């Protein structure tokens, strides 16, 4: 794992700078009015922070920032899988969360039943779920024309039902404890007044590295090129001789692997149950949408944003409190989409008829 990172460090830097470039590019392309809106938003954030620090102190504020970032990266990890599958299918894959859940159970089987180290279990589970997703694509999805959205939607709904119930039959509904794959688990260190878990930091790094690796895979390989082509224009790609089926299969496999990773990073912070991805999925879905659905870097930034909104709104606004934090985060997304229908970092082209 670490050697891969070193090997590609130059490429990684390139991808990061490209992601940043994408971000700046989207800023540049904002019209004057939008730039003003963004300015207002920034001012609101600053004023809110000052007010928050003044009322309940610096330490609590920092702790909430850390909490928000912490949740945000988890949302981002799953959002990444959603972005990939969106590019691959152009329909709502209802089964995305259940696939990630199933993959996480496979991690659990490797680590708990086979006694393998966590990180190895995760890698193997990613591989298994990638293969399984490729199989699902081959047997269930490819039978239908990619433009037959109706049929594919039912297939994903069926998978949603089958995987959820099957996990219940196999692993029951009692929560399983999945340990964190990182060293110094459950230990914290102080950072500017906040308690930060070591494993959280490792999680953040893992998510960033994953984004970079996936970006490289899509930008530097032939299959990645084909994938981007297919997700942009199916017909033209077919006319260029691209194997649509195999390319979409690659997308499913990649999305499933990333989903398994996301689930395996999320499970140690909660309990592994057949329904555990449900609550995460809503936020990841939101992050993917807010990020523009086709921008990998955008989904990470949007994930962080949603995590922070949820924490800050829930923590500082009494009327919202813990119970309405979710609703608030979702409301913000709806507002953003109403202003910018293709998300914060999405390409302007939304129509894909």
């Amino acid at each position, binding site marked *: 794992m670490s050697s891969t990172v070193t090997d590609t460090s130059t490429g990684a830097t390139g991808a990061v700078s490209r992601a940043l470039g994408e971000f700046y590019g989207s800023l540049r392309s904002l019209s004057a009015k939008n730039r003003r809106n963004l300015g207002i938003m920034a001012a609101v954030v600053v004023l809110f922070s000052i007010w928050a620090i003044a009322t309940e102190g610096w330490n609590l504020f920092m702790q909430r920032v850390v909490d928000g970032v912490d949740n945000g990266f988890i949302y981002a990890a799953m959002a990444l899988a959603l972005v990939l599958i969106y590019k691959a299918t152009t329909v*709502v894959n209802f089964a995305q969360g259940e696939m990630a859940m199933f993959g996480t159970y496979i991690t659990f089987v490797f680590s708990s039943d086979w006694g393998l180290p966590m990180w190895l279990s995760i890698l193997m589970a990613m591989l298994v779920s990638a293969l399984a997703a490729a199989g699902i694509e081959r047997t269930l999805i490819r039978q239908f024309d990619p433009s037959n959205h109706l049929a594919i939607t039912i297939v994903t709904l069926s998978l949603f039902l089958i995987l959820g119930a099957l996990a219940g039959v196999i692993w029951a509904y009692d929560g399983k404890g999945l340990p964190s794959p990182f060293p110094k688990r459950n230990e914290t260190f102080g950072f500017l007044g906040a308690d930060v878990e070591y494993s959280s930091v490792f999680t953040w790094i893992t998510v960033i590295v994953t984004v970079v690796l996936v970006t490289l895979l899509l930008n530097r390989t032939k299959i990645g090129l084909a994938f981007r082509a297919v997700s942009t224009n199916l017909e033209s790609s077919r006319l260029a001789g691209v194997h649509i089926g195999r390319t979409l299969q690659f997308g499913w496999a990649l999305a499933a692997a990333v989903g398994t990773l996301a689930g395996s990073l999320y499970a140690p912070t909660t309990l592994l149950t057949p329904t555990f991805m449900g609550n995460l999925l809503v936020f990841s879905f939101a992050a993917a949408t807010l990020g523009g659905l086709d921008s990998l870097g955008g989904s990470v930034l949007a994930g962080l944003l949603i995590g922070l909104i949820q924490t800050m709104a829930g923590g500082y606004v009494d009327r919202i409190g813990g119970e309405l934090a979710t609703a608030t985060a979702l409301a913000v997304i709806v507002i953003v989409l109403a202003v910018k229908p293709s998300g914060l970092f999405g390409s302007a082209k939304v129509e894909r008829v």
Partner: protein
Amino acid sequence: MAMVTLQEGSPKHRAYVIGAWVLAAAVLLYVPFASDIGFAPASIDKAFRVTQLNDVIAYAVAILGLNLVIGYSGQLSLGHSAFVGLGAYTTIILVSDHGWSYFATLPISAALCFSVGVIVGVPALRIRGLYLAIVTLSVAYVFPTLVLKYESLTGGPNGKKPARGEGKLEPPSWAPFSDAGRLAQPLWTYCLLLGVAAVLFVLARNFLKSRPGRALVALRDNPTSAAINGVNLPLYKTMTFGVSAAYGGIAGSMLMMNRPFASDVQFALDLAIFLVVGLVVGGAGTISGAIPGSLVFVFVPYFMSEWTNDQEGMPPGLKQITSPLFDWLETRQGGRSIAGVFFGIGLLIFVFLLPGGFIDGMRKLRARVVRVVPNPSWRRDAAAKTAAPAAIETDAAAPVPNPTH
């Protein structure tokens, strides 16, 4: 090739159409009133079965409403559970806290849901595809949270129901079944709901044949061409969302007439998803598809659960084969979830056999028996009305309604 060929508009064709309607009406009346229903074994309480049929009617209305948005105007909505819930809570609150009659609440929930639907429909003008899905999904997700938050109004997690002994729909004395004991109330509800649903189905049919309705379909098939034709796009899209939400709201009210109890979990995201399942199983873009869709929605999970619970009522041969499986499942903690697996597999088989939905499949089946030759003059009129000049080839290229746009 078809065995019978009928000329559209001919007396024979008219007889065929009328015959089909009479048959349908006969089935609708026979099923609940028959002394013993085929699919209700004698041991099962008939009143309960009629209650389930009432659910079928209510959900059919909800699916029909959803179809207006997904099947006809081609926008994916995952938020209809919230509209059904809003209608249900409107009715149950007015009935239990303010002593309204159920019927009086119908226009209120329709109007309320229409307004909320329009509000959701406004962002839908700008937001499309998956982006719209997430917006509507948010609505579905937030609704139960609001129910919990405003506990004094909604009863919170304990649900809302009329005070004990109140809020019952008693049949009038003139009804022939008013002395049917336990059965009287569900049967009366059945008649009422059937009446409401019939009106709503006819309205939907007329709406789709009207100018705005045809514009809607044109809009789904080719947004640009419809715009060229001078259709007021934003207005119709928003209106559709509102009407669709109103149907959902009335469906919620109907559910409450049948079973006066509302709880937050009843109107959560699962409902939204299952409504979509019902819709696609029945057939997107068909009015009558709402009925098989709703039947599947209500009965298939029920029977799946019954069969996995105790294998009674299963075909004998199948029972021998599956009993080792069920014996094994018996010892497993989540063993009874197998019903969900079966339901999912059933759905998969269904989509492989009838990818266009039930109604589409039936039409293909019917086409083998009866062939209706369209009246040429009608066809020309219809083509002139709906087809946009620039879009003949592209229209033909996309005969399947596209649910995500």
